[in-house]
């Protein structure tokens, strides 16, 4: 089960999934990101501080936006992952494909890079 919070800070949309994202709940993440882009946000942070688990269904959601974000010039940075969640991204080598920062300050810096 996942609950996803959203808040806006300095023109940046911050998406915070709370709980576990699997094949039954990844749609929630997909809808939230789609909503953010639909509302015109070009800077998106994903606060993974309360994300306890993610399976390939959730990772697939992030990956499915890579091309679209390139075309639309949208920046997305993930931050605050626990060791276990970070390990899942590492196993698949997603650190090379997605932008991942250790904390919010670093994530904001990356999302504001031109």
């Amino acid at each position, binding site marked *: *089960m996942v609950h996803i919070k959203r808040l806006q800070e300095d023109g940046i949309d911050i998406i915070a999934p709370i709980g576990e994202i699997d*094949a*039954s709940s990844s749609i929630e993440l997909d809808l939230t990101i789609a909503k953010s882009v639909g509302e015109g946000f070009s800077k998106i942070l994903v606060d993974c501080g309360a994300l306890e688990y993610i*399976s*390939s269904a959730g990772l697939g*959601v992030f*990956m499915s936006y890579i*091309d679209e974000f390139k075309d639309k010039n949208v920046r997305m940075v993930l931050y605050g992952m626990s*060791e276990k969640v970070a390990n899942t991204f590492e196993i698949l080598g997603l650190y090379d494909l997605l932008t991942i920062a250790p904390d919010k300050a670093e994530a904001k810096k990356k999302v504001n890079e031109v």
Partner: protein
Amino acid sequence: MKYKYKVGCSLENLQGIRDFIRTSLKNHGISELEISEMVLALDEMCSNLMIHAHDCNPDELFDLEIAIDKNKPVVFEIIDDGSVFDINQFNEPSMDNLIHEKRKGGLGIRLVKSIMDSVEYGKSGNKNICRLVKRVQVN
């Protein structure tokens, strides 16, 4: 020690499967990170099975068994009577193709193969048994 769990093929049951695996593996001296990897691999296998072999029909059940013994690898068995999809016969697309073709399926299989030491398929009567082995230090 053997742990058993019977579950219907609804994706909503994945949470219960993960909780069962976490509870079974704890108190055997296995590290948290290794437990989380095995939970992930089994979640991927079970969700694949529910979706591809059972059309997410909650009335179709399968068994998950975990054998944990001192100084032996951890052995998971998924037992069902659906169609068999052998992940060893599946060539995962490259990560690049996964992005551009928006194919989400190959990621889970890649995770399972990276995490588990072996994945084998067998039959017992009319049941399929998928056996996944992970070599970890068990106390």
